């Protein structure tokens, strides 16, 4: 069993390939998480404009991306756009797809956070002479972010896991590299190693989330 799934010789041979993948996964996450956060923040700030002409298209936008599987979006960009004469690399496609997909999810979270801040806070901030944007930036957002911190972390966990989709469009991240190593060695060990790396990388975040969720629930009594 060990011989097949955790073969030391194969681990030694595949290690440089898998390690390069890990570095790319970290790099990719460092790009797509801020990108998604930024997209989400823009959506949430737009949603705080309570005009129906802004609110309804925004809701449709968010629901669209909640209904649309990220992999389908990615394939659409990667394999569909070239027919329109627009050939983007796998990396650019991942960045755009994530910006659209995870932006919608982050947007919903930020929106819930902003709505959780009592209106009195804005009124008080405005009456001290702060402008609308100042009140949002200095008073509402810091509280909003704190209120939805567990959801933001939970979504970030999902985004990091989602970077594994990059393997479908030949972005050399952890899963892609592991599969390359697997097809070179005819042995599933590299994929097992990649799984272990994902687990070690993300387990602390999962533990933290579990604690935060339990604490949030205990506070509900």
């Amino acid at each position, binding site marked *: 069993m060990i011989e097949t799934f955790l073969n030391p010789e194969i681990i030694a041979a595949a290690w440089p390939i898998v390690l390069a993948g890990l570095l790319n996964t970290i790099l990719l996450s460092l790009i797509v998480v801020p990108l998604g956060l930024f997209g989400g923040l823009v959506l949430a700030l737009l949603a705080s404009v309570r005009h129906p002409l802004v609110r309804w298209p925004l809701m449709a936008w968010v629901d669209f991306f909640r*209904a*649309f599987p990220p992999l*389908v979006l990615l394939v659409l960009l990667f394999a569909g756009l070239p027919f*329109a004469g627009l050939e983007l690399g796998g990396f650019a496609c991942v960045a755009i797809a994530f910006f659209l997909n995870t932006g919608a999810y982050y947007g919903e979270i930020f929106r819930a956070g902003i709505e959780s801040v009592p209106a009195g806070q804005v009124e008080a901030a405005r009456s001290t002479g702060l402008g609308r944007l100042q009140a949002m930036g200095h008073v509402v957002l810091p509280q909003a972010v704190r209120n939805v911190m567990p959801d933001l972390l939970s979504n970030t966990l999902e985004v990091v*896991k989602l970077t594994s*989709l990059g393997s479908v469009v030949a972005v050399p991240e952890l899963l892609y590299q592991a599969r390359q190593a697997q097809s070179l060695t005819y042995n599933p060990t590299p994929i*097992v190693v990649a799984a272990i790396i994902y687990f070690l990388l*993300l387990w602390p975040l999962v533990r933290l989330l579990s604690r935060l969720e339990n604490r949030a629930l205990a506070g509900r009594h």
Partner: protein
Amino acid sequence: MSAWDRFVETFFNAKVMLKYLPDILSGVVVTVELALLIIVSGLLAGLALALLRSLAIKPLNWLIIFVVDLFRSLPPLVIIVLIYFGGPAADVSPSGFVSTWLSLALVLMAFSEEIFWAGITSVHKGQWEASRSTGLSFGQTLLAVVLPQALRLTIPPLTNRTIAITKGTALGTVVAVSEILGEASSAMSNSYNPSPLMMGAAAYLVLFLPVVVAARWVETRFAWKR
């Protein structure tokens, strides 16, 4: 031919769409089957684990927490690839369909166990004590008193999580499951035309948009009252 005509001709080609419509529809059937299997088995397994956890047997609970953490931290695509490509090395050769079903059901099990468990622990201790003192057994208390209250709380987070995980059926295309995306991709490479892909995208929206809109309603209907 104007640019617009060329665009329509390329992305919404009626002839290509008509030809590959049956393929896309058979993909829809596979996606729906896969989704239903994942939802039923994943949620049942999650509920079973949460009930086991309420027995408060220490070593068993550590095991449950570990399994839940494991499937929350691994990307679903990694689990699918692991089962599909790793299975044959252990002399089991699960099909792409089975690999995808098993992987996503395990992921849904992990997430739903957390949510069910959170629901169970959110029911006040006094409820347990009161129903036990009226003579109900542990099992009766759990089923008749605690679960009905707990489940109500779990509905909004559970719906969201279930939708997100069920959308993962598209990952099956990586291990040759002929669901919507798989059918659409192969139709696209056969016809050298992206119209089937547009049809596939539309099929996902037809399937999932009503669910997402319904989830929005459920979210407000069963929202946690603060």
